[in-house]
């Protein structure tokens, strides 16, 4: 794994984005931009936040480093250690668990070859267990980057992992194609209207 970089600075493109984010807030309230800026920094830095990035965000927002550090450690979505290029975050909270997340986890671990909380030796994939991601109606599910993969079965998991390993982008969303959180057996209300 790569060690802590000594310095961090936003790329020109991200600097412009960061300035646009800060500009959304009234003067003197730039600290409101701390979460979006940390997110931006994490995306630029391959999915994790080195200490230098936290210091850089603190400096941009005129905050004490500890204040930004508090935010970064509070949210589990911020990774403070390097992660794989693809990070698969499996929900195992009660609804997903009732709908078979154990089988999803087993399939994932089997297919990827590491346990939850670990990264493959080539740094390609990290597996992680997370708490409820708010997609209970499509349970079981996991998240890769910004995308949700829902209504999963063990076969789906194997297919998705195979796609990732092959460098393809698996299609996100419900694997059984149900739209808008409708019941599994099809929409029961608003059937007359087209979505």
């Amino acid at each position: 794994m790569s060690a802590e970089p000594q310095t961090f600075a936003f790329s020109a493109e991200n600097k412009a984005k960061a300035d646009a984010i800060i500009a959304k807030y009234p003067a003197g309230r730039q600290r409101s931009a701390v979460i979006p800026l940390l997110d931006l920094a994490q995306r630029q830095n391959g999915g994790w936040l080195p200490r230098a990035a936290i210091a850089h965000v603190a400096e941009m927002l005129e905050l004490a480093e500890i204040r930004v550090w508090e935010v970064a450690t509070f949210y589990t979505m911020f990774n403070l250690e390097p992660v794989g290029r693809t990070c698969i975050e499996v929900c195992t909270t009660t609804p997903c668990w009732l709908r078979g997340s154990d089988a999803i986890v087993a399939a994932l671990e089997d297919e990827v070859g590491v346990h939850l909380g670990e990264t493959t030796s080539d740094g390609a994939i990290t597996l992680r267990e997370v708490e409820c991601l708010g997609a209970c109606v499509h349970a079981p599910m996991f998240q890769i980057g910004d995308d949700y993969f829902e209504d999963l079965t063990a076969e789906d998991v194997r297919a998705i992992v195979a796609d990732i390993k092959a460098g393809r982008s698996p299609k996100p969303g419900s694997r059984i194609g149900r739209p808008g959180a409708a019941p599994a057996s099809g929409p029961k209300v608003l059937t007359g209207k087209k979505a």
Partner: protein
Amino acid sequence: MPKVTVDGVEIEVAPGSTVLQACEQAGKEIPRFCYHDRLSIAGNCRMCLVEVSPGPPKPQASCALPVAEGQQIKTDSPMVKKARRGVMEMLLINHPLDCPICDQGGECDLQDQALFYGFDRSRFQENKRAVKDKDFGPLIKTQMTRCIHCTRCVRFATEVAGVEELGAIGRGENMEITTTIGQMVTSELSGNIIDLCPVGALTSKPFAFTARPWELRKTESVDVLDAVGSNIRIDARGSEVMRVLPRLNEAVNEEWLSDKSRFACDGLKRQRLDRPYVRENGRLREADWDEAFAAIAAKLKTMPATSVAAIAGDLADCESMLALKDLMAAVGSPNIDCRQDGAKLDAGARASYLFNATIAGIDDADALLIIGSNPRTEAAVLNARIRRRWLKGKFSVGAIGENVDLTYRAKHLGAGPRTLSDVLEGRDDFARVLEAAERPMIIIGSGAVARDDGAAVLATARAVAEKYGVVKDGWNGFCLLQRAASRVGGLDLGLVPGQGGRDVARILAGAASGEIGLVWLLGADEIDMNRLGSAFVVYQGHHGDAGAHRADVVLPGAAYTEKSGTYVNTEGRVQRANAAHFPLGEAKEDWAILRAMSGVIGKPLAYDNLAQLRARMAQANPVFGRVDAITPATWGPFGAAGAMSDAPFANLVANFYMTDPISRASVTMARCTELLGPNKGATGTHG
């Protein structure tokens, strides 16, 4: 004013109060950990639960609930008792219960409240969590497993001390209090988080494992290591000061204490003078009192009275200063000075050397000009009050002098007297701020007037004060910030050169040229001893510092923890320090030494005990008749017109942790100097 009922008793409370404050007003004790009346409300410990109706049918955190008209509050209902027990049980889940080896034991909020409000046993069977200890620096010992996450320390550092170095990282069970990674707490007020910590997570490092609180004899006294006059409690065991803690005084230090005042007490055990010494053949040898007095008396006989001089040091109490003045008068010498830094202060104009607005008056000011002072190092507790005023808003601060971080935003106007003239002439924009302010305030550092052009600086500052309404009916915002605990008292007693007498600079010049034959140093260590020439030096004091090394006769005196003494703080408040134990060895109280000396030379002073001496003090200046009170000074002319040099105002407190013989002898302060001082990180091999 809303009326509420607390446990069946109807009371009226101030609008905006919290339910907790209402309960306190009704005389009900509410247990709490996170709530502290000088910090912002966090509401996270849940210990202060009470039952409030109307409201949801569940216990409410009283610290964060505002009172409302007609509220019925119950503080001892079955629901409240059960809720408190539940909270306490939860708090203790991850608390190690290692009280027998914890330094907080005996003065621990958690221990006390668990006893009174807790459940009688634990139902927790699982493993407790363990947390890695953090490095908070040389003063604060951490045992983070004991932390209950009240966040008082975080709020203190952020709000009062003004250093955002502490924070709570992680969440839920994994929450930890920590400093910015790899950093120590660098505030001058950091020791206060030890007092604030309701458990044993943050304890005093120098005091660790040395004593239990119930073994210590507690003496209420006054701090002398700066001129704030913080009220302290000295905890001693036998003839050893174990620790110093702050004592509540709303008008002075509230309940805070600077790190130097708190932790320099180990300096009281080192480098002490506990017997008289007389120099023989170039070496100091142990002597007894009679020999020492005889040596001085013999020397006095050999010279005219005008060749004798006396300088009072920074830690001297008023009793000994008056005795010194009376002794010099008995000898017939006019050469006496209490301003060893050479400050051009006029003992005749009391308003010129006082913090006239008073420390509590900072809360009323609405603009501040700081001239040649760094209150953060010169009076750390006072600086916290300025910061609090600044946090309230509508308070602009301008600073002339070194550009330093004061923990609040101050506009740096310039470095030297020229900027002060600019403000006076209205050329500097800050003049508009002072003009617009209703209660403007000026703080002049004692260093700004301890220059060759000090009198001119003082006069210019006075002109600024008069021009911009700093002094007017009902408000005197002209504040001279002293650094030495003895200075105001010395000036109040008139320890300045008499008719034709010499001040410190001229005493030193006279000693070098041979015109001054004997110099009596009453704890004066901050002068350049090399300039004393061949004069016969009597050093009366408690530490083997610069003065004792130069001395021909050493008279061992008592430190401030060993004598009952009067001190006048920078605002002119007369306060009494009390003895926590007797002076060491053969050392005596300083006034008594001077009284005995007067007897040896056949000119006994007119007092035989402290009461008589204090009566004489009140006679010399009526302010000493009013202890614990401030006698306001009348405004009058002071300072002297003249040219001011262009030299910038220097920062005279180079190292906050070592400013006097006591803190220089302290191992703790040496450690602070090494790790947090101006040259931090440098090792002994540097330079």
